[in-house]
């Protein structure tokens, strides 16, 4: 049911002339993807350093809350560009993307990273309000930073893996794999 709905949504996006135009324009697609990679450098670069500070591996002599607060703005600028270009890349190739196992894992990891970031930011605000920025990160905050590193590295890795066709619908896969990838037509053939 969900797979059919997602595929129909992707086919609807695919019907837009702009979707085809981006996909077929060599320079536009390449520049959007290059900008996406550069935005990853900005966003993830800042995020890595914040998380490494919380874990005590960088800027040990500077309060963690100060590093997190001061790097938040450039990090969010990188995030905005990364999301915008990411959505454009999805819009350019919606059907193959929605039927990619890697893309699906990436979305799940993104949701996880988003929830973790929301909890992490709230906890950081609490720390600043209750004890000021000098307080060293609690075990819970360090766990959040470790989880953030793990999830975002997963997002980047699965994002890169989308380019590989190992589990694409045209491959001979098991029914379970077709279901996970959302290969609706192939599942019907197996049935």
């Amino acid at each position, binding site marked *: 049911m969900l797979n059919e709905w997602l595929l129909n949504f992707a086919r609807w996006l695919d019907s837009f002339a702009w979707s085809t135009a981006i996909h077929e324009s*060599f320079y536009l697609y*390449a520049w959007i*993807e*290059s900008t996406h*990679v*550069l935005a*990853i*450098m*900005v966003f*993830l*670069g*800042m*995020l*890595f*350093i914040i998380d*490494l500070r919380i874990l005590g591996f*960088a*800027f040990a*002599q*500077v309060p963690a809350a*100060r*590093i997190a607060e*001061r*790097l938040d*703005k*450039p990090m969010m600028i990188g995030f905005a560009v990364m999301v915008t270009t990411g959505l454009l890349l999805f819009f350019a190739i919606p059907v193959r993307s929605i039927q990619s196992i890697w893309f699906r894992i990436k979305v799940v990891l993104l949701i996880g990273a988003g929830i973790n970031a929301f909890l992490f930011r709230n906890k950081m605000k609490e720390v600043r309000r209750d004890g000021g920025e000098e307080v060293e990160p609690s075990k819970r905050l360090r766990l959040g930073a470790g989880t953030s590193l793990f999830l975002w*590295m997963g997002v*980047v*890795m699965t994002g*890169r*893996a989308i380019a*590989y066709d*190992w589990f694409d619908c045209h491959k001979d896969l098991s029914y379970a794999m077709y279901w996970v990838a959302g290969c609706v037509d192939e599942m019907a053939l197996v049935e």
Partner: protein
Amino acid sequence: MDLLFIFEWLDTSFLADMSKAYGGVFAVVQMVHLVSLALLGGAVLITDLRLLGLVLRDVPSEVVTSNMDRWFSLALIIMAVSGVFMSSAVAIKLYYNEMFWAKMIGLSVGALFVYFIKRPLLAHPHETINVWALRSLAISSIVIWFTVAASGRWIGFS
């Protein structure tokens, strides 16, 4: 000097055997390369934006520089090692790829710039360095490393 012999050697090396035979290993190395690029980007940007006075203004720029230098070097080493492995899979093709050479020139300029200009200059107390020299250093650094990253991505398109 013709460097083709290096690429021919790389093409027949153990690394090439592995990168060509195991697509999964190649993909994982490529992912590690991308994650290291993000770390390198963070180290470059935080240092240079601080030198420009745009972030962490209440942290001495010497502290920012010394903290970011080791992460920059670590990221560069991982990227170089993973980059050689990735190159081994398509060594001869890369030799004839203009964008690959653009990246290599950018990378060489970047490494020389960091280790022979930027770091020796920033080893002095920053308040004794002309503010425009610091700003030029920071802007040059951002331009060089983002050009290296963009040209690296364009190898795949060319």
